[in-house]
C-alpha cells in the first residue's frame, strides 16, 4: 500500500486511473443494464393463417390493432402502428425476420437485431397478413441467388439508387432527426430483396416497375461481392471514407509525432 501511495504522482497514474474508471463503468453498466424482455411464445410449427393470427394477436395487435387496421396514439397524427393490409408476406418476413419487429418501445426507428420468432412462426404470421390483402410475396430462392446476378451492373444500379443513403460500400449513413440508413453488409439476399420491394420505415419502395427483379438480383450480387472481397490494406475503418481515415491520421499519426517531439525535447538522465 505504501509503494502504491508513493507512486501516485507517477506520470502514468492519471492515465491508468482513467482507464480503470472507464473499465469499471462499462462493467457495471453491462451488469445493471436492462435486458430485452423475452416475448417468445413457443408455438406449434403448424404454418397456417389461424396460427399466424393467434401470434399476431399475442405479439403485434397492441400497436397494429386487432385486425391489423393500425392504431393511432391519440397525439396528433402520430400512429402507434400502421395498417398492415396489403404490405404482403415480404414485409412481415423482413420486419420480423431481421428482429425489427416486434418493437420493444416507441423510438424513431426500429433497430435490427436477433429475430424473436422462429422461421415457421414468421411464415405463419406472413401467411395471415398476406391473407388480408394482396401484397409483395417472399421472393423465391432463384430470385435472390447472387451467383445468377451481374455484380458489375448491380454496382452501377447500387451507386445510383442506394449509395446516397447506404454508402457506396454498404456501410450505412445518417438521415434526418436521429434516423439512419443501416449498414447492409452480410445481410441475406432475401432480406435485401424484401427491403427493396416493401420500403421499410424511411426507405423508399423500389417496386418491380422501378428496379426489375433481375436488377434487384444484380444488386444482391454486388453486395455479396463486396462482402467477400479481400482488403489488402487490412483495417477498412468502417469503409466510411475520409472522416474515419482523417480522424485516424490525426489521432494516431499526430499522436506519434507529438510523443516523439516530447521525447526529443526531454533532458536525458
Amino acid at each position: 500500500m505504501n509503494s502504491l501511495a508513493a507512486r501516485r504522482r507517477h506520470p502514468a497514474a492519471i492515465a491508468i486511473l482513467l482507464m480503470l474508471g472507464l473499465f469499471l463503468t462499462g462493467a457495471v453498466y453491462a451488469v445493471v443494464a436492462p435486458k430485452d424482455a423475452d416475448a417468445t411464445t413457443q408455438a406449434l410449427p403448424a404454418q397456417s393463417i389461424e396460427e399466424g393470427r393467434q401470434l399476431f394477436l399475442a405479439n403485434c395487435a397492441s400497436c397494429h390493432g386487432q385486425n391489423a387496421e393500425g392504431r393511432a396514439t391519440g397525439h396528433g397524427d402520430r400512429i402507434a402502428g400502421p395498417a398492415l393490409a396489403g404490405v404482403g408476406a415480404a414485409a412481415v418476413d423482413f420486419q420480423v425476420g431481421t428482429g425489427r419487429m416486434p418493437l420493444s418501445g416507441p423510438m424513431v426507428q426500429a433497430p435490427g437485431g436477433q429475430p424473436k420468432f422462429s422461421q415457421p412462426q414468421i411464415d405463419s404470421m406472413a401467411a395471415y397478413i398476406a391473407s388480408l390483402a394482396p401484397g409483395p410475396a417472399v421472393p423465391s430462392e432463384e430470385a435472390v441467388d447472387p451467383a445468377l446476378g451481374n455484380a458489375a451492373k448491380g454496382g452501377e444500379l447500387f451507386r445510383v439508387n442506394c449509395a446516397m443513403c447506404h454508402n457506396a460500400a454498404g456501410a450505412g449513413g445518417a438521415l434526418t432527426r436521429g434516423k439512419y440508413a443501416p449498414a447492409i453488409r452480410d445481410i441475406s439476399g432475401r432480406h435485401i430483396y424484401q427491403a427493396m420491394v416493401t420500403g421499410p420505415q424511411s426507405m423508399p419502395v423500389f417496386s418491380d416497375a422501378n428496379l426489375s427483379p433481375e436488377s434487384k438480383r444484380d444488386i444482391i450480387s454486388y453486395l455479396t461481392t463486396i462482402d467477400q472481397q479481400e482488403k489488402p490494406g487490412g483495417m477498412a475503418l468502417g469503409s466510411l471514407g475520409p472522416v474515419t481515415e482523417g480522424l485516424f491520421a490525426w489521432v494516431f499519426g499526430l499522436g506519434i509525432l507529438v510523443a516523439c517531439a516530447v521525447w526529443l525535447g526531454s533532458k536525458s538522465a
Partner: protein
Amino acid sequence: MNEQDTTHPGSEVAPPSEHGTAVRLDQGHVVGDGGLPERFTNPGLPAHVARMADLDESAARRAEKQVATLFGISILGTLAFIVCYFAISLETTIFVPGIGETSASNFALGVTMALGLLGIGFGAVHWAKTLMPDEEVVEERHPMRASDESRQQVVETLKEGGASSQITRRPMIKYTLGGALGLFALPLVLQVAGSLGPMPQKSNSKTFWNGGPSGPGQDPTFKPLRLMRDPENTPIKAEDVTIGSVFHVMPEGLLPDPVTGTGGTPNLLEEKAKAAVLLMRLDENIIKSQKQRDWGYDGIVAYSKICTHVGCPVGLYEQQTHHLLCPCHQSTFDVTQDAKVIFGPAKRALPQLQITVDGEGYLVSAAPFHEAVGPSFWERGR
C-alpha cells in the same frame, strides 16, 4: 546601476558550483524577505546538470551499447525487408490482431522498413542525448557588414562589366533584349488563361431539359423529353411510379445505351450534373402547394437533384416524412411544401420540373426548369 547591466553576451552562464560540475536541483534556494527588489537580476543560463554518462564511465559504456543495439536493429530490419521482399508472395494474407485480415507482404515490408528507419532515428537521438555534449553555450554574432574596400570593389566590378558589354553604347541590343524578356511573360499567362476553356455564357442557367445539349454557346429549343431511368435509360410510365417510390431520372437522349455504351450526348458529365432529377409520388392530399400539384401529375412530382447550396446530389428521400436530405451539409427539403428548405445552409427551394404524360402514357417534361438549378453563381443575381 548594478553589475548585471554591464555584462555582455556570453558571460551570462552561472558561476560553476563549488561541488564541481554536478549540482543538485534543490540547492541554491534563497530565502526572500517578502519585498520586491528594485530590479530583477539576469539569472543567466541555468547551471549545467551532468548526466550519468558524463560522470560514470560504465554508464557511458551502457549508453554506447544501447545506441549500437538500436543501429543493429536497423541493420536487421533492413536485411529482413530485403528477404521479405523476395520471400513473401503478394497473394498471401495473414490475420493481424487490431488490423484484421491483411496482405502479408504489405505488413511485413511495412514493419521491417519501420524497424530499419526508426532504428537509425532512435539510435541517433539516444546518442545525442546521452553521449554528445549538452552544455549550453552562447556564441556572439559577428558583424555582417563587409569592409568598405570590398564593397567599393563590387561596385567597380559591376560597372566595368556593364561598360565592357557595351549595352549602354548599343541601344538596339538594349531595347530588343527588353522587348524579348517582356514578351516572354505572355505565353506563360496565355496558357493559363487559355486553358480555362470557353466562358460559360448562359449554360449555367440551362439544362438538357431545355431541349438538348446546353453547353456554352448552345441554345436548345424546348421540346418535351421523356423521363428516363438512370442508368437503365428506359422511359417511365406514370402507373410505374407507386406511392413511396423514388426514381433517379435523366432526360431522354442524354444517357448512352446501357448495353452498347454508344449514343448519348457529348459532354456527358456536364449535362448529367445539371439535368439530374428525382421523381417521387406522394398522396396528393398531403401536398400543401397548389403550384406543386399543378406542375406534377397525380401526385407524381419531379425535382432537381442538385442542392441549391453547393451542388451535391440531394438523393436521400425519406418516404415517411417526405424529407429530402443532402448528405454533404445536411440541408433538408420538405417535398410536401414544394421542396422548401426546412434545415441546413441551403437558401432556395429545389427547382421543380413541370411534367405531364404523353400519348403513350410515359412521363414527359412539360417545360424546362423555370430557374437555374444548383448553387448560386455570379450572373444568377441571387
